[in-house]
């Protein structure tokens, strides 16, 4: 049975607050940043970083919710469908440049549409395989780019592993705008997305233009993914895990699931970032490694469970 949404949101907001405070208090220079630096450290470094974690986590979770709804499968997310890799490759090609987010968007949308065009009529396994193949191909191209432009080698590593260490208030501001717009774009279609749960045909018979809905929603998902990649690099599996757990807690109705997942994505990435900062102090782990360490086993568990439910 699902939690009442008022209860669920209260608990979630409390968790978000706690995680945020934890994040503000975590750093290699101690909980309050050493003598005399507290304000600077917390305001200039930890706060923008914590905000960015919430926003990137929320963005990836939202992209995951959308993709899982339109593909009617809980196993997809922007990382698995190659959106993230496409965004990273294109952003890295022009980096450093103010056009990074724009190119990330072009790359993300191209990769996703390619996967979609090849596999949307096929079984979901095919979609996943094609997505993974395209994602791997793009990551390989990114690695190739690293070798070709050796001088920029280390700059490009940033895209491959992702990280929030370079958070600034400007980046947070940029992403908050993108995220709010995306949520506002998705929200009016919540019921349409619900109807897809009963199948494409049912949706159509309920007056939903499924093709348009899919295309439009995919566009939104690509937009938030690629903009979050452009500020934080590739961070995998957030969009897979978070919506799935949220569906368990508040049910599959998108009117509740969308905002709940966005907040939960924020909580998750805040905690992952604290781990990335604190595990090997003062060295920082790439946050993508932390999320993949949680996400990949989760993915395997989901596949295993799906198979057992079927038979």
């Amino acid at each position, binding site marked *: 049975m699902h939690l009442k949404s008022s209860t669920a949101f209260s608990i979630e907001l409390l968790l978000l607050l706690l995680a945020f405070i934890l994040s503000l208090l975590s*750093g*290699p*220079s101690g909980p309050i*940043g*050493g003598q005399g*630096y507290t304000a*600077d*450290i917390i305001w*200039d*470094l*930890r706060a923008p970083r914590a905000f960015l974690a919430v926003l990137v986590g929320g963005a990836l979770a939202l992209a995951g919710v959308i993709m899982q709804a339109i593909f009617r499968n809980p196993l997809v997310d922007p990382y698995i469908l190659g959106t993230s890799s496409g965004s990273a490759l294109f952003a890295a090609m022009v*980096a*450093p440049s103010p056009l990074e987010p724009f190119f990330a968007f072009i790359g993300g949308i191209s990769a996703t549409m390619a996967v979609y065009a090849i596999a949307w009529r096929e079984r979901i396994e095919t979609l996943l395989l094609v997505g993974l193949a395209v994602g791997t191909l793009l990551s390989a191209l990114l690695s190739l780019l690293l*070798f070709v432009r*050796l*001088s*920029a080698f*280390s*700059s*490009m*590593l*940033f895209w491959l592993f992702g*990280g929030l*260490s*370079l958070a*600034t208030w400007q980046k947070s501001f940029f992403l908050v705008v993108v995220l709010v717009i995306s949520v506002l774009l998705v929200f009016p279609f919540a019921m349409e997305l619900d109807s897809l749960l009963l199948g494409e045909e049912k949706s159509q018979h309920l007056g939903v233009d499924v093709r348009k809905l899919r295309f439009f929603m995919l566009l939104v998902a690509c937009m938030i993914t690629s903009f979050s990649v452009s500020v934080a690099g590739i961070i995998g599996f957030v969009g897979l895990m978070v919506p799935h757990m949220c569906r368990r807690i508040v049910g599959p109705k998108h009117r509740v699931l969308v905002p709940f997942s966005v907040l939960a994505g924020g909580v998750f990435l805040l905690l992952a970032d604290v781990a990335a*900062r604190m595990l090997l102090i*003062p*060295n*920082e782990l*790439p946050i993508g490694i932390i999320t993949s360490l949680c996400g990949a086993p989760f993915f395997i568990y989901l596949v295993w469970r799906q198979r057992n439910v079927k038979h």
Partner: protein
Amino acid sequence: MKLSVCLISLFLVLPVVGDGHGEVVMDDYGREISLQSIPQRIVSIAPSVTEIIFAIGAGDKLVGVDSESDFPAEANDIKKVGTYISPSLEMIVVLKPDLLVVSDLTPLQVVNAIEERGIKVFVVAPERIEEIAESMRKLGVILGVKDKAEAAARDFEERAAAVEKKAALAREKPKVYLEFFPYWTFGPGSFGSDLIEKAGGLNIGKKLKSPYAEVSNEFVISENPDIIIITQGKHASTTISSVKERPGWSSINAVRNSRLYYIDDDIISRPGPRMADALEELYSILH
């Protein structure tokens, strides 16, 4: 009393300030850096940079180094600020440095993020051995240790020139295979390759397409090097005996004549003062 102390210290500092004050130095990314005064708190985010700073006598000004900086031994006692790929901005900011020195190993995004926080960044990224001395001189100017830096740079150049001179006189140039990771070698444009050439050898890796490249068994066997050198250090664990046992390698000249040697990983991969040591050591191996 207090005032007089201030005045005295001002007098003491003034001549030193005059030395570096207002000087504009171009770093290796072509950016012009000028400092109001001589930096007293430096953070280095590359082992090579740390070595140079110590070599030119400014090691006492280092308040933070990256976690790979382990030479000279004093570097180990300095506060660590994370890896050179992703240093902790927070640690850097807390140390309140007036100058950060990085190499080209640190991502540009990180460099920009540090500068955005009002910390000057100087990039030291020599691409050839000759440029290491130049880097020492530039850092000498900016750190206010011009004379000591000049001496260190000259010493470096002289030692390198001496080796080159001897190498030029050598009757033959042995073919060398230098491995820093199983089956990975230095290609054209790398320091490792330069070092071999300057020490009077022929680097078989020079035929490859990229500065750091993986090679096949076949490549090494058909190139038939006279000498095989294996790096040793934190990141290298290959041993001479395991190399001898690689399939088909028993026919290689170097293995037949037992001319396999170790060399310290750090001295041939860090573009710092110890590259002169590397040159001398390579020369003695080669000839």
